[in-house]
């Protein structure tokens, strides 16, 4: 199956929900949807054959002022689909990082939503156990993966003085 074919099928599956579909490097398909429709989209994608969340990526676009949440879906059971990763992406405003959980559709998103919660401070409404998973609570307060949390590594390659 060529990626264009999969894109056509996803288009017919999602209809108006899919705002924009992009193919990156032949095997990564990014589907942009609205925050409101995410649960419906996830349900349809799961029925279509993308049976687990490979990973949940959040990208912070600080200048543009939004977080982009990408559920990268993969397939275990369907050989043809398993070649591709479909990223269901939607944006939420940076100043109000609240969205709905997909925990009840994809159990595999459980810990990853907790990770996004601790690193970006995004609240997934309806998640039954939204606690930090990797960081300790005080560190999670700082939302370390946001772009305004700046890590200072000494960029100087010339030694100050020995």
């Amino acid at each position, binding site marked *: 199956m060529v990626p264009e074919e999969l894109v056509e099928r996803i288009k017919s599956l999602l209809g108006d929900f899919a705002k924009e579909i992009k193919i990156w490097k032949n095997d990564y398909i990014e589907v942009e949807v609205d925050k409101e429709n995410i649960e419906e989209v996830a349900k349809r994608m799961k029925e279509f054959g993308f049976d687990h969340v490979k990973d949940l990526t959040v990208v912070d676009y600080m200048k543009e002022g939004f977080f982009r949440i990408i559920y990268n879906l993969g397939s275990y059971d369907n050989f043809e689909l398993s070649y591709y990763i479909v990223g269901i992406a939607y944006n939420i405003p940076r100043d109000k990082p609240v969205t709905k959980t997909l925990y009840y559709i994809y159990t595999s998103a459980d810990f990853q939503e907790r990770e996004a919660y601790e690193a970006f401070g995004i609240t997934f409404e309806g998640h039954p156990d939204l606690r930090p998973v990797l960081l300790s609570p005080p560190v999670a307060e700082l939302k370390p993966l946001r772009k305004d949390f700046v890590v200072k590594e000494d960029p100087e390659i*010339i*030694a100050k003085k*020995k």
Partner: protein
Amino acid sequence: MPAKPVSKQVPSRGGIFSKFKGNIEAIAIGVKFFFNPQRFTLIYPKEYIKLKEGYRGFIVLRKDKCINCGSCARICPAAAMRLIRLPFTDPKTGKTRMKLWPIINYNRCIFCGYCVDVCPTEALYHVPYHDVVYETMDVMDLDLEEFQKEPEWDTEKQGLPVKYVVDEKMGLVKVRIKEEGEKQ
């Protein structure tokens, strides 16, 4: 030829006989190794491994080859290699100019070897050993003079050199390397 999935099954549970056989086999192989242990342990301070050519050990600078490009400091993933500004007198022209020389801080070095690989003139090289003892952390931050010397290797003075050779029967075999004096 792509890979092909093949269904397999674990051996069946078996009855009391296979349990008995399993016990006997386990004890038998234990006894076998009890009488023939096939060991290849390195008795470290008394023996040491003479590592192969190309081992990424400590890094030494050949100052005469260095062209002061700074690539090594730029690529260093651990920020162990830094540049230092020192006067340099050109032997041909006799002029003295300030130049950038690399120095290394072994507190930070991860021995990835990028600096050696990126050096356009092979001014840096690895010595094939890694067990060097420093007394304090300050000493590990080398200056330009120390960076040009090969670090002192105490292990060599205390033990006998061995090397490990892959073997079909034993896995690895410890082979004693004859020192130069012993050959005659």
